């Protein structure tokens, strides 16, 4: 049983509606809080009407890209226009560092995800749903499979089939086209786009791909009505609530449902109880480890895509990870770079080679063998990765590393001047082991550093 704190922090309970500490795993428990009522309502309506409602709500993707969910559904051709099956794939390959909300949906309100899938299936007239659950999630898989089996036994699925497809450990499979490749039984390497999945997705057929939280929000959108939903949060672009993932050096970490538009400061200090033991906030891993880090002067930024975007940040998958002053930011950048080096699928050269180069550079700074020129070289390498690969994994390594070098330049220079890490062994991340170093096929050769 998950010990994670999961609750509605403020605003209306939508994704977590009805959840008050006891998981709504059984069909009866979910029905008691109005479960499957929206499915019944949706099925009585024309599919196009349902899509229109989601468009009007301006619900946007909760997986990281923030693409309008309704519009994405509208790209799927109707069955009369195409002689192929239409598929839905739900992205439950939750692997972005700092993200732990989709698993709580699968554990706490699995039937709401099933209901969302069935509403989406009605809307785009699909008969087949695949839910791609990350391979490491065992209890989550069992909870979700239990809900699907119960719904099937009760006749709720009708003529729709939902199959849970389990991954096998690969961050890249959270990228939508890599997910499709993996679902097709291949190595999870992203595809070139176009064609986009709406036209040629899994098995070269039209495919709608949505994150778990996006799909789970659909019943809530219909329950409150699209017009009302569009007023919640920070309209017009960041409507509704979302599940924020608060972690790191904070007193009360957890998954908190709250409206878009609350400030980062409010989430960390009022909801999360602030930085414990008198420590000071130094940086925030904002949106996930794939994005630029936030500095303390931007804590009053509202958590909506527009406000964050104006300052060069991303809302990502709702991650807010607090980093206090005991952490060496070079070690942070190194560990982030190691992650992406480990997870790079190897298809595009800038990412495959660039992530390894970033690891070497960050390690050289940390160990005191780098020079000022290496800081410029780091930014140059980042520049040569961003926007130059098939998917955004390379960008996801480059953006946080570049932001660390740019925003914490003094700390990087202190490493150069000090001939190594000024924190010594006192940084929280000192000596943190990275999985990439336990594989014999991916050693980072120090002498290879230019």
């Amino acid at each position, binding site marked *: 049983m*998950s*010990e*994670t704190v999961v609750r509605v922090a403020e605003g209306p309970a939508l994704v977590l509606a009805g959840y008050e500490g006891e998981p709504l795993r059984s069909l009866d428990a979910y029905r008691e809080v109005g479960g499957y009522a929206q499915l019944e309502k949706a099925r009585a309506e024309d599919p196009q009407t349902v899509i229109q409602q989601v468009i009007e709500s301006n619900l946007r993707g909760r997986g990281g890209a923030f693409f309008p969910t309704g519009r994405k559904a509208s790209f799927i051709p109707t069955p009369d226009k195409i002689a192929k*099956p239409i598929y839905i794939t739900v992205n439950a390959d*939750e*692997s*972005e*560092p*700092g*993200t*732990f909300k*989709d*698993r709580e949906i699968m554990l706490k309100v699995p039937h709401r995800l099933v209901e969302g899938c069935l509403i989406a299936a009605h809307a785009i007239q699909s008969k087949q749903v695949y839910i791609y659950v990350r*391979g*490491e999630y*065992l*209890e989550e898989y069992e909870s979700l499979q239990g809900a699907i089996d119960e719904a099937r036994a009760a006749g709720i699925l009708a003529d729709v089939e939902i*199959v849970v*497809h*389990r*991954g*096998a*450990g*690969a*961050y890249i499979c959270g990228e939508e086209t890599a997910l499709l490749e*993996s*679902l*097709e*039984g*291949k*190595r*999870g390497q992203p595809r070139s786009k176009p064609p986009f999945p709406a036209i040629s997705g899994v*098995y070269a057929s039209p495919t709608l791909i949505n994150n778990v939280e996006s799909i789970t929000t659909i019943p809530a959108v219909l329950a409150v009505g699209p017009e009302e939903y569009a007023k919640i949060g920070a309209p017009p672009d960041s409507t509704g609530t979302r599940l924020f*993932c*608060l*972690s*790191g*050096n904070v007193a009360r*970490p*957890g998954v908190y449902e709250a409206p878009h538009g609350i400030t980062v400061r409010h989430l960390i200090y009022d909801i999360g109880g602030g930085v414990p033991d008198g420590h000071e906030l130094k940086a925030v*891993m904002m949106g996930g480890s794939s994005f630029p880090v936030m500095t303390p002067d931007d804590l009053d930024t509202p958590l909506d895509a527009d406000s964050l975007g104006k300052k060069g940040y991303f809302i990502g998958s709702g991650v807010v*990870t607090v*980093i206090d002053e005991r*952490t060496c930011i070079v070690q*942070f950048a190194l*560990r982030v770079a190691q*992650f992406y080096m*480990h*997870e790079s*699928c190897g298809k595009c050269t800038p990412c495959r080679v660039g992530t390894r180069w970033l690891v070497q550079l960050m390690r050289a700074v940390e160990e005191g063998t780098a020079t000022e020129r290496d800081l410029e070289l780091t930014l140059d390498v980042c520049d040569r990765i961003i926007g130059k690969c098939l998917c955004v994994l390379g960008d996801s390594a480059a953006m946080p590393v570049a932001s660390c070098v740019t925003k914490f330049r003094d700390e990087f220079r202190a490493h150069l001047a000090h001939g190594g890490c000024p924190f010594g062994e006192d940084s*929280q*991340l000192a*000596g*943190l*082991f*990275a*999985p990439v*170093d*336990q*594989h014999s096929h991916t050693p980072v050769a120090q002498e290879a550093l230019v």
Partner: protein
Amino acid sequence: MSSLVDEIHELQKLYPEGTRSAVLPALRLAQERHGWLSREAIEEVAGALELTPAYCYSVASFYDMFHLEPVGRHTIEVCTNVCCGLVNAQAVLEAFEGELGIRPGETTDDGEVTLRAVECLGGCSTPTIVAVDHVYRQSVTPEDVPSIVAGLSE
């Protein structure tokens, strides 16, 4: 116990005919049955799916959870990504190293336990996350390590 081949044929029914989608679940099943994906295990999967062993090996080698070398009867996987690292995952990993006498990526001499460091397991608010035989343990501290290791042999 039904045969692996029969079970793989059941898995194939979840996907459209003529597709290779059953490869991942079939490899998982074979690994659960044999402990790791030996050459023989991969050949068995390939035979059941009417694919080449080379194809199945190429897929298996892409994914972290597939073991292409023998592993221990138990696996201990410690998250050492940033969120766990901020709350001392390193000390937890070192405690396991000390308790088991092996480094990350290694297996104890008696073939019982494999220790691995892994990337973010998605339990970031209750660090450190340790997957013990694939079941998540949350808020693990170095003090918890001896009892976790002792609990393995039960």
